[in-house]
């Protein structure tokens, strides 16, 4: 990885420093390298070889899915209608993508300009997370070509999923709009940026509303199965709140993790402002995440108390529940508390990684493991797992592609 980025640094570092706006589109796309050099550096990067391997197997699997139906890549379980494709791809990705609305709220509404250097990364993380959640949905839906039906053909407005569909669609548009200033700088369309700036506040508030509602709605979806999911993982009165509050720290932790990775793997692309402020920002984010975690633990406790589930806690499922909550929330919380107090940034970052894993684990528990807990356990078919990996591969490629080019980690110099 190192030699490659060093390579590009020469070419691109120069490019960005010399000027941004009056370079040609090809130069912008190929980072100022000739096509031959660009392809050459792609091939020397070991990460690309791993990605290539994933896609080489994954793309044929995707073709199989679209030619022969879901049965070809999943177990096609009637008992587990939602497999890991949705369990991870939709229910796991969306809380991690709450970063967009959280940071835009922090900066635009709360006017915390100290978080400005990371706002765009959080917005991009949100946008891509949502976009790829939709990609996962397109793989998993029986008839993906009918994705727009709830918007244009037939309405079921009393259904929670109807809200989710509309909110995700609207919020995706909002997030695209929020990213447009960065794109406009890159593409040299100043008018666009000026227009978006005028409606930033509206976009941000719309983002808060839409996020609150559909992060909650994803939880409320499980209220449709109050008796199928283990009672510890479902509290119909509070489920939406559990999902919403956990998405707050999930989104913040995801930003900590992504900004950390980017700092190490794309140092050449980060400007001095980003690199110098990141540690302080990380601690600030961790502080916010810790507050959300405490809230989350309290409302989880309220749910157990409300439904009188104390005895369930000492059953096998209860221990598993405590393990999830302990590893996924309590341990990161302790790490954050200690790390923030003693300014141990690396420690905080590992804690954030643990919290991210914990949230994905919680969502998988709700969708797959504790769903139909009285029936057999569904273990995903390897092809389904590989397709998840494949979509994540595309996610990674797009994420990296944008970070390399659009001014997210650096400021565009005029």
């Amino acid at each position, binding site marked *: 990885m190192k030699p490659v980025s060093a390579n590009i640094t020469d070419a691109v570092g120069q490019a960005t420093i010399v000027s941004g706006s009056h370079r040609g589109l090809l130069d912008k796309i190929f980072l100022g390298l000739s096509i031959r050099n660009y392809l050459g550096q792609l091939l020397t990067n070991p990460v690309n070889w791993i990605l290539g391997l994933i896609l080489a197997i994954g793309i044929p699997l995707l073709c199989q899915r*679209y030619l*022969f*139906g*879901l*049965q070809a890549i999943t177990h*096609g379980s*009637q*008992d587990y*209608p*939602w497999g890991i494709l949705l369990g991870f791809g939709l229910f796991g990705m969306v809380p991690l993508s709450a970063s967009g609305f959280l940071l835009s709220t922090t900066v*635009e*509404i*709360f*006017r915390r*300009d100290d978080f*400005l250097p990371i706002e765009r990364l959080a917005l991009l993380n949100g946008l891509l997370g949502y976009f790829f959640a939709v990609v996962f949905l397109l793989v998993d839906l*029986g*008839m*993906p070509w*009918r994705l727009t*039906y*709830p918007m244009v*053909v*037939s*309405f*079921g407005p*009393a*259904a*929670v*999923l*109807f*809200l989710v569909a*509309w*909110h995700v669609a609207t919020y995706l548009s909002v997030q695209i709009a929020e990213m447009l*200033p960065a794109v406009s700088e890159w593409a040299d369309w100043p008018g666009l940026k000026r227009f978006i*700036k005028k*409606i*930033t*506040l*509206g*976009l*941000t*508030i*719309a983002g808060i*509303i*839409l996020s*609150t*509602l559909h992060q*909650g709605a994803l939880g*409320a*979806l499980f*209220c*449709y*199965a*109050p*008796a199928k999911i283990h009672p510890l993982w479902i509290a*119909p009165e509070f*489920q*939406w709140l559990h999902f919403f509050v956990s998405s707050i720290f999930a989104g913040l932790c995801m930003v900590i993790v992504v900004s950390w990775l980017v700092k190490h793997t794309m140092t050449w692309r980060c400007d001095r402002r980003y690199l110098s402020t990141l540690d302080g920002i990380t601690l600030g984010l961790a502080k916010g995440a810790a507050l959300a975690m405490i809230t989350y633990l309290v409302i989880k406790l309220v749910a157990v108390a409300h439904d009188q589930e104390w005895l369930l806690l000492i059953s096998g499922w209860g221990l598993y529940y405590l393990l999830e909550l302990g590893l996924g929330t309590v341990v990161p919380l302790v790490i954050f508390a200690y790390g923030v107090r003693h300014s141990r940034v690396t420690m905080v970052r590992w804690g954030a990684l643990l919290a991210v894993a914990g949230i994905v684990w919680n969502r998988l528990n709700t969708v797959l493991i504790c769903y139909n807990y*009285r029936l057999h356990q569904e273990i995903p078919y390897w092809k389904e797992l590989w397709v998840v990996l494949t979509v994540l591969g595309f996610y990674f490629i797009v994420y990296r592609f944008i970070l390399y080019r659009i001014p997210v980690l650096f400021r565009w110099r005029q």
Partner: protein
Amino acid sequence: MRAKISRRTLLKGLVAAMASTISMAPSRKSSAHDFQGYETNRGVLVDVSRCVGCRSCEVACSREHGLAPPPGLVDNYRLLDQQQQGMRRTDQNAFTVVNRHESPLLTHPLFKKTQCNHCLEPACLTACFVNAYTKTPEGAVIYDADVCVGCRTCMVACPFSIPAFKYDSAFAPQIMKCNFCFDTRLSRGRPPACVEACPMEALTFGYRNDLLRVARKRIRDTPGRYEKAVYGEFEAGGTSWLYISPVPFEQAGFDIHVPRQPILNYVKDFLAVVPMVLTIWPGLFAGIYLLARANKTHKNTNDHEDVSDETSER
């Protein structure tokens, strides 16, 4: 000057925020507020004590709907014996299945037929975001494959785990489920194929209200023969298919964890939150914005520090 522009921005923003969200506020039919079911709701009373497990209903059903014939009827009638590890469930090839259940209270096995129970307030219907499901006044819960997107939320929502998905179809997958023979029979006042095929009249077709009286009469007239409850009278808010059993229902293969209120009730809490968020959030966050900005401007004038450079760079 700056304040003026911001105020206009603020208003614009509020309008944008409201417009983008208010259009999707859930509107619920007022008639669904306390829905007691249609007077004309037909149903079937299943008398588990009468079923002998011949599976004629499965045959009749598969013929009626053009499905693959049920497995193991002629060449392998030990099929029911093999099920002791796991019950057969409805799937894309079978809208109804009969399973055998052993009860410690009886010297012979019991057979329980499973199919869509055609709830009075169906969970599948309330969970569907394209309105693919319809509850007909005759009582059937029918499905329209033409608008279905294949999200399978109905399968998650159904408390009886009935709807099945045609996973093996790439271009026309759809939900497969019993439709009470609505198109071919029920809409013309005829009983469904399974009922007509049942030689033991373990399946009694009629108006649901009448069937409840019949069920209670059987329980009353033959003391000790039946459990003193009708499964489906209250389950999931009431179902068109009703069951009486000689043993406690869980011993005859019934899911006794099914809630006794409509599944819709469990999501109403969230649906009530939606308008609340739509009402409170815009004002709340706009207010915070104004406070934070005022605070910032105040501080700035005190500190003689210019942040406008910083913000303009974004």
